[in-house]
């Protein structure tokens, strides 16, 4: 028997923005498949792996429906490739997706929304509001770069812009005003 379809989903979980979860979506069975590998490649060609992993890929046990990979230090636009291999490391199936992983900046964006909900006057604070608008725009623009063009370079530029706003939040988002 062989797989009739094979793919995967990429997700993140609230509270763990550094973790990428890959979930297999496979139809059929194939006893030749004995291992899986996940490649997380950035726009610069670098492969993301957790600390201590020396390969370019992340091992994914064939018995697990999903795998958590703790390797993100900020938001990334990534090329994600999953390979299904046999014992001889021959790739039997593979799938590729371009994704934007934005939980760091989305979490911060939601935090600012919570601040606004609890302090209604913040919406009149031009500094706060202008930067929140920029933050939202940069995240959306990055997402659009990926969804419309699989453009990791420009997506990463946008995400990095949003990250810069988040990193400078103590100067740019005064929640007490």
């Amino acid at each position: 028997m062989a797989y009739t379809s094979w793919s995967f989903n990429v997700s993140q979980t609230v509270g763990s923005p550094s973790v990428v979860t890959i979930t297999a979506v496979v139809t059929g069975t194939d006893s030749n498949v004995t291992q899986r590998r996940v490649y997380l490649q950035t726009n610069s060609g670098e492969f993301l792996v957790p600390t201590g992993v020396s390969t370019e890929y992340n091992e994914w046990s064939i018995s697990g429906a999903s795998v958590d990979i703790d390797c993100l230090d900020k938001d990334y636009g990534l090329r994600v490739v999953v390979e299904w291999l046999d014992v001889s490391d021959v790739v039997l199936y593979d799938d590729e997706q371009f994704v934007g992983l934005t939980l760091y900046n989305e979490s911060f964006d939601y935090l600012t929304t919570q601040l606004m909900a609890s302090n209604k006057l913040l919406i009149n604070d031009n500094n706060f509001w202008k930067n929140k608008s920029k933050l939202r725009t940069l995240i959306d623009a990055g997402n659009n770069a990926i969804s419309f063009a699989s453009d990791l370079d420009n997506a990463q530029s946008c995400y990095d812009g949003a990250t810069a706003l988040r990193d400078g939040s103590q100067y740019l988002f005064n929640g007490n005003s």
Partner: protein
Amino acid sequence: MALSTQQQLNIASISEYLAYVDIQKKGLNGGGVPLDLPQKIYIIRKSIAYWYALDPTDTTLVATGNYLMALCGLYGLEAQEVTASGGTVAPSATSAAPLPLQFEVAASGTTFIDGQGSATLATFAGYNLLFSRNGIPQSTVSSQPSYYSWNRSTGLLTISPSAILGELFQIYPV
């Protein structure tokens, strides 16, 4: 009933364009409506939508969602009409008319028995009535040799003359 976060997000999405169009129509200074209101609604909505997709049980969504509704203001109310979440017309209860009664008058055991002049047809209450006696449609005109009266509120059917053994009665609710 309180709006769910998903309903709030839908309302906000509609409020964005309603606000934009309204500001355009009002001309100079948007008639006093903040010119960047659609942008504000969008930015707040997007952050809530992302969070809701990740964790719809997050209790902070109540406060942020209500804040979003406050931003939408009157446009939010208008949007509720668009989404029909602001109320619906209650559908009338469907009802099936009771089955007609057809029988020959007997000495006992039938709706009208021999000599009986009236009966209450509770299940027929609320309907009009067609009454046929021995195959002849009856009327409520009391000057006729035989007639009936019908109280559609109480279901009381009164016939004249009284039922006679062996007569064929056909009573239809309409």
